[in-house]
């Protein structure tokens, strides 16, 4: 497992240190916080991570922190813990994308399993993000004309049709098309289409 980190936000000192000890005992990196505000002061992690969050907290509640993180476009997975088996609240939390909702007192193994899943999920998200960022970088390196050609290629147009649309020769289109494939690192047309989908380049209808 590459470096990963677990954040714990709970206002109860004893609960916090107990969770920290348990997580460290299985070799996880842990950072604990007494309130959402404290957590928000920390800059976002650069490695796969997840957040263990008490629902009832002084000041901003756990659910509010969740909303705050979502609106700040953070995709950190959240494991909620609560003292009450409060069903409406857990439904709300799960709808808003919580990975797990644990009712105190839970088994340590349940928490560890939830954390494991959450970190794997975050790792996957991060890899996707990295891939997309790379594709965006590649798309950015295309010349405007190459981009126009690419849009038409993935829309399924033939070289001849593209040349007619852009008012150029079929030969030129062929050269530009090869250049697009090379710059994007695509092996085939389907490969290029998948990449375009991921980066969100609009398919020209």
């Amino acid at each position: 497992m590459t470096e990963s980190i677990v954040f714990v936000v709970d206002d109860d000192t004893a609960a916090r240190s107990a969770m920290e000890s348990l997580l460290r005992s299985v070799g996880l990196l842990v950072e604990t916080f007494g309130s959402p505000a404290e957590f928000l002061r920390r800059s976002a992690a650069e490695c796969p991570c997840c957040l263990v969050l008490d629902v009832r907290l002084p000041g901003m509640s756990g659910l509010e922190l969740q909303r705050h993180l979502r609106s700040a476009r953070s995709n950190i997975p959240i494991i909620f813990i609560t003292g009450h088996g409060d069903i409406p609240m857990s439904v709300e939390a799960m709808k808003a994308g919580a990975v797990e909702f644990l009712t105190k007192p839970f088994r340590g193994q349940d928490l560890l399993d939830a954390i494991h899943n959450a970190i794997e999920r975050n790792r996957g998200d991060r890899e996707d993000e990295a891939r997309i960022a790379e594709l965006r970088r590649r798309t950015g390196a295309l010349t405007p004309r190459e981009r126009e050609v690419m849009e038409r290629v993935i829309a399924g147009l033939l070289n001849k049709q593209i040349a007619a649309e852009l008012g150029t020769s079929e030969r030129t289109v062929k050269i530009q098309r090869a250049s697009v494939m090379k710059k994007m690192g695509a092996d085939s047309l389907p490969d290029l289409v998948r990449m375009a989908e991921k980066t969100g380049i609009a398919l020209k209808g």
Partner: protein
Amino acid sequence: MQFMQPSERRQAVWGYALAILCAGSALTVTASLRNPLFPTPLFFAAIVITTWYGGSVPGFVAIALATLSLNYYFIPPLGSMSLNKPEILYLLEFALPASLTCWFVRKRRITETMLRESRDKLQSRIEQRQAELARVSRMMTIGEMGVSIAHEVNQPLMALVLNGEACLRWLRADPPNLPEARKAAGHIIEEGHRAGAIVQRIRALAKTSPKRVVLDVNEVATEAAALLQKELARNRVALRTELARTLPRVRGDRVQLQQVIFNLAMNAIEIMSMETERARELRIRTEAEGSESIIVAVEDTGPGLPSGDPEELFTAFFTTKEDGIGIGLSISRTIVEAHGGRLWAGNSGGGAVFQFRLPVMEGAL
């Protein structure tokens, strides 16, 4: 003839003695006035007094004595019991109204006694009902406290379980991490004590009979505040406790006084939870008031008291809440007054303030 009870016999003897005493006094005083124009008024008074305090039979004895005295001492021929027609008329004119008066007085007396008895009976029934009400409200409060306690017990329980698991994992590691395992075991003990303290508090709650002990009201307030944690968090109310550094001891029931503070604070929290604009702050304050008494105040930052007489808040079944039954404040007042104190309401700068004064225990610092 039926046997008389000793108390009845004593009552009868007292009645007759009273008749003789009153009639005799009337005779002595009237006789000392030489040739009174109207010899009857004092005899009349004697009859009324005898009937009121002695009953109807002694009353009639007094009438008989008065009539005989009048005939012998004041109606010519003096010193003789002989009767002629005008004398008889005169005596009848005295005896008949006297008898009537005697009858009315007796009737009045009986009515009054009955009224007093039924009043006493009602009074004791009211007291009984109030005690019942207090018990019911207490049970309800205990129910509310129970939820709070469950939450409180859960915290150390979870810490216990997690520390235990962590401890095992530190020991199972290769090589075992003894310092970490020891630390986790230490936490387990601490949390066990924390749970134990909560259980003790529950036990204190379950004790039903009021127990008067020497109390530090600061402690009572702190315990009540601990029970409020859940409600405070749920309604996003900040708690500020301003406890006097030293507070003279009072004598009282710990749980009952806790209940009063809890009730007042719950009201404050509920009122504030309807507020959206203002910051919600609950203030619990204790202070010594000279060496005679102490004050406990519960203040909020809500909208303040409703207009009207604040005393109305304390009457049973008066409520401003939709789902309230309006006995919290009335019971709180009953409890405070049973402790020789006073509970009242007012407005402070930012909201309502409910406070009570308790007398300091004699000989306390």
